[in-house]
């Protein structure tokens, strides 16, 4: 089980900073930082800049994403913002609007 889970009915307005993996099913507005990675599940809404390890996005993200590892935008994901990571995958069916920066 992940260290931190923001459940579907929960809204956080502010900063979330974690040394663990963070799974978001609910809503976060503000800032999200997680060393061990972030999973934004389908139905989740993140209106925040996201920093951290490997990221999987299946929900909605409005904000910039910066990952030290990889970012996977899964089918059904909706991302508005810039993505900076060493590896990025965008699945068929993912909506994405923003710049990609891959340290080329």
């Amino acid at each position: 089980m992940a260290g931190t889970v923001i459940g579907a009915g929960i809204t956080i307005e502010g900063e979330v900073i974690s040394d663990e993996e963070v799974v978001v099913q609910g809503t976060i507005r503000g800032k999200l930082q997680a060393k061990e990675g972030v999973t934004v599940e389908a139905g989740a809404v993140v209106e925040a800049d996201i920093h951290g390890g490997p990221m999987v996005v299946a929900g909605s993200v409005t904000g910039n994403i910066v990952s030290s590892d990889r970012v996977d935008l899964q089918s059904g994901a909706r991302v508005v913002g810039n993505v900076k990571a060493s590896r990025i995958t965008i699945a068929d069916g993912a909506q994405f609007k923003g710049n990609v920066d891959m340290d080329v």
Partner: protein
Amino acid sequence: MANDTNDTRTVLGRGTRVRGRITGGQDLEIHGHVEGEISASGEVSIESTGTVSSSIAAHSIVVRGAVRGDLTAEDSVHLEDGARVVGDVRAPRIAIAQGALLKGYVQTGEASAQRPAAARKAVAAAPAVRTAPVAVARPVVATPPRKVEKPAAAPPPPPAPVKRPVVTLAGAKAAPSPVVPALKKGAKGALAKKRG
């Protein structure tokens, strides 16, 4: 993905810090740190590693960690062993287990009523959560005796030598009392006789 067992539960892990407001209709389990208001319509539990430094409103609240802020529950508040709470507690049902530390106003029954202003002041002046019990005990015990001693010792010396040097000499032999009595007429003569 990571959690197929408890989908309706929100968990803030030990390594997680939240600065801001948390609202929602779910159970909330806090192992990490929260600086910001929490309001949930489910159960909020602050586990032994968890710290919350603001008020919590929920259906029910269970505390095993540290809270600095008011706890208000529609149903119940449980302070378990290891809980450290500085703040007011209001709920229809409140349980404080042995080993729980609490500093604040407690009210069972309706959660709406206000607390007395005096109690609020006391809590506002209270120090950090962990040190609260020690710091509270000291000033109460230590201050009163000191205050009593000082005024008793201070006043005598100045008036005695300056105003009535004669009496001081006599008083020094008879009694060391620092209080200078007003002598009646003729008393001076009586003293002279005795010495005489």
